[in-house]
């Protein structure tokens, strides 16, 4: 036990605990908002990419490819540092939420799009032959099946989002990583802050994973 008290300065946690926890709360809140935006954008793009109008389809494809090919950091920089040049002066947090949301929107779009396409044609045919109406086919067969296909990768994407949110610290958003860096700068300690931050992210991610497993069980029934 002595080793433990000598290796880690527990008093630092008393002093900086609130700062770290507030960072965690900010991270959670930002990620939740960005997830909502991302799902919204992703859904819209996925639906639009089935449009009969070619330019619409190309735009959707282009959007997905750009998000896939660009680091999120550059996106954030363009919004935060480049924005003012065209009169867009948004606070860092807003840029963070918007940037993350638009970025993961591309990934969600791809998840939803392949989910829509993946339902075996045979099941639809069987339903048609049994006399189910189009509406019934959509609600009873298509949507439940799509959920099974879409939920696991979506949960995974949320977890990726949480990890990417750490980058918001670079554009000065006071989320978990930024507050940890602050703790490091003020205390010159390295071990305590980083153990804490790894643990806190891990808890957040495990929490989401757990919720994800519960959702997966529900939709399988």
């Amino acid at each position, binding site marked *: 036990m002595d080793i433990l008290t000598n290796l880690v300065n527990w008093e630092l946690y008393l002093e900086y605990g609130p700062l770290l926890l507030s960072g965690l709360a900010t991270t959670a809140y930002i990620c939740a908002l960005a997830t909502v935006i991302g799902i919204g954008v992703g859904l819209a793009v996925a639906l639009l990419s089935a449009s009969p109008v070619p330019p619409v389809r190309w735009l959707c494809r282009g959007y997905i490819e750009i998000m896939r*090919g660009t*680091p999120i950091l550059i996106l954030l920089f363009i919004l935060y540092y480049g924005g003012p040049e065209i009169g867009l002066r948004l606070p860092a947090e807003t840029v963070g939420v918007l940037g993350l949301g638009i970025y993961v929107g591309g990934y969600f779009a791809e998840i939803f799009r392949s989910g829509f396409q993946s339902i075996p044609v045979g099941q639809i045919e069987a339903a048609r032959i049994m006399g189910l109406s189009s509406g019934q086919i959509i609600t009873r067969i298509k949507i439940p099946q799509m959920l099974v296909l879409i939920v696991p990768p979506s949960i995974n994407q949320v977890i990726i989002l949480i990890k990417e949110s750490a980058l918001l610290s670079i554009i000065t958003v006071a989320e978990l990583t930024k507050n940890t860096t602050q703790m490091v700068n003020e205390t010159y300690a390295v071990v305590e802050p980083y153990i804490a931050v790894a643990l806190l992210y891990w808890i957040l991610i495990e929490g989401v994973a757990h919720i994800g497993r519960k959702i997966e069980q529900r939709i399988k029934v």
Partner: protein
Amino acid sequence: MLEYLELISEHIDTLMYGASITVMIAVTAILLGMALGLALCFGLLSRHRWIRRPCLAYQSLWRGTPILVQLLIVFYALPVIGLDVPAIVAATAALTMNTSAFQAEIYRGGMLTLGHGQFEAARILGIGVWPARIRILIPQMFRLVLPSLVNETISILKNTSLVSIIAVTELMRVSQQIVATNYRALEIYTATAVIYILMNTVLSMAGRYAERRFAATS
């Protein structure tokens, strides 16, 4: 538009230099990560708990925390244990360990898809465990997981942008330096984004070509 292109061509050399460093870091991390990832994959599949558990812990750590945090930890921790290395080495090390955890999962999925039968056939003929893995399982596994591997490579390339935080002069940092001189953030960062997209597009095309050529047999 013309003015924009003039601006970019003024700095194109520096940007290309940055891009080359980016590629160098990415390639190193991918290759080293591949070796480490393969070893980790077999560790995860081991029948000995004392091998599996540490591998799971390592994987959980490197997949479950933000890369930025990992970079900062490696960057600040190495001097503490006496390893004073240049930032680019610390950065590459962190990226390598990160990708090895993800690649191990990709390889593990591939191995499970391959199934046990071919390995059993090899073992029954007396072929040793590692020769069987290297000559029979791994070549096929790579063909199976090529798409996922290409995606991971794209991820690595994008993640190199983060090493700018610990002052490694790759594409991201180079563009930050340019912006510091002329304050044209929007133009420069957009151009940088385009360069990243181009690199990743080339990567995707190379990946699709490789898939066509190698994923065909079987």
